[in-house]
């Protein structure tokens, strides 16, 4: 048995649309998949073989994607199928997301730089002794009207990333949790709030 079996490490995601009048509409509510990257990060932490700073093991960023398929909801998944690929896809012209480019540690390799959105520290909340909730907020001006090859696409996958467990000089985050959701065509009519809770 590994630590996931003993502790029953799991997660849960809810997605709400948020409208200008403050109302929220629940559009998705399901468990997630903790992927092998979490085990890699934890073994690096407890094996004293990566960064000496706790901050490098924190989950401080996420990705959104447009090519999610449920067959990817397995523990061996190490990257999103079709992550947003540019600053403008995340932030657009007036969005408030903080998007950064960094490498990715995926399948034991360091990838070319990809884009992430940072999770503000105040959106990382300990909700009990063994649970932490990440609140990912997309304002109404972020991630709008996405397209691929001239066709409209919807947000349908998301992932959480550990910052830089191996202490690479150029940070290389690693995917630790993954979720495919139903298609959400994001427009400036609403914002989105992802409440992602990990239970240890």
């Amino acid at each position, binding site marked *: 048995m590994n630590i996931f079996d003993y502790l029953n490490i799991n997660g849960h995601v809810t997605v709400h649309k948020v409208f200008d009048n403050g109302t929220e509409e629940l559009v998705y509510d399901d468990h997630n998949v903790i992927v092998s990257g979490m085990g890699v990060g934890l073994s690096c932490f407890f094996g004293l073989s990566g960064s000496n700073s706790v901050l490098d093991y924190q*989950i401080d960023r996420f990705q959104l994607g447009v090519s999610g398929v449920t067959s990817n909801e397995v523990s061996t998944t190490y990257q999103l199928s079709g992550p947003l690929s540019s600053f403008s896809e995340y932030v657009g012209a007036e969005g408030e997301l903080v998007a950064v480019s960094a490498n990715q540690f995926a399948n034991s390799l360091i990838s070319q730089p990809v884009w992430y959105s940072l999770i503000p520290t105040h959106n990382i909340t300990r909700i009990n002794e063994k649970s932490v909730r990440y609140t990912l907020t997309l304002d109404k001006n972020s991630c709008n009207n996405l397209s691929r090859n001239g066709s409209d696409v919807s947000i349908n996958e998301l992932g959480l990333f550990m910052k830089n467990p191996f202490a690479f000089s150029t940070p290389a985050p690693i995917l630790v949790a993954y979720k495919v959701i139903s298609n959400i065509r994001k427009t400036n009519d609403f914002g989105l709030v992802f409440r992602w809770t990990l239970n240890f």
Partner: protein
Amino acid sequence: MIVDQAGEIIVDFLTLSPSLSKIPSASALLDTSNFTFQAISYGKDPSAFNHHAHFLYLSDYSAIVVQSYEPLSVSSYHSSAIASALLGYKLLPKYPDPLDKRLEKDSCRTINSGFSGLDVGHCANHAIKAIYSDNYRVLGCFPPSGGVDYYVVSSYDDPLSKIIYSGTLSSTYNQYGLMDVSGFLTFAPLNGAQGKAAATAGQFTSGVLLNLPNNFSSTGRVPVAWRLDAGDAGSLLLYGGVYHLGLWCLDVKAMLAEGHKPPFAFNALNNIRKYRLFAKKTFNKDLLYINDGTGLAAGLGGFNTLFNNGNPPVDSDWNKYVLYQWTIRFL
């Protein structure tokens, strides 16, 4: 078993505020060592803390005394034999529970002749503290570095006339200052690669090692390795054996609450460290049980074998020890 507290430790570091890095007096809290493995402990069933060598206190003799439960012709003592020797004595430890916060929930305090020892849920190391200098031989569970005599006797009735085996025990843990009074065996201040090199070279005198393989990130396996030298092993054997192992991280909140600030250095004599249980392993047979038939028949097996025939090993003679490796799987 990885206990529930392990999840709390993980959430602790996942939710630590990055703003601490800007505060000089608090930035050390962000060091991973505050949350990684820091100690090992040995345990046994609670009632054992008032049996075995915890039972008889002889104020006139500076020796550990224990009654053998083997036939008199056998110069061996092992705790597993006691199961059928004492009516009503339960040998087995408590079953492991995910909610456990120590190795044994029930009292593990030795009470004898008007004095008592520590109750930490596992085997303490009273010999290291001067306040226990008169009675550490009963409180246990490790000998001093300078050595202490032991007698395995056939009867508690006039025991010193009924010695069937004797010798001297000395503690390597105490010689190198690796264990505090509460019985926490500290980890060497080495990272995974350094730990592997030390383990490969057999250098265990700086503490417990992370014997990390090169492919750890693909296997998710973190092996923890340490050595139990014959002097310490023999002592644990006399006090009832080893039925639990505990793997501990630091309890940062408890230390901060007491006014301590990081880095929380280990000091065997005056240890400020508080610990939180991360994992435990419980056994239904003494880990130190030796069933050396050939040796027993010749009167040289079991206990005698462990003790290198009466000559506890020195640095250059590490051929008598128990080597433990406990692998925690993260994948």
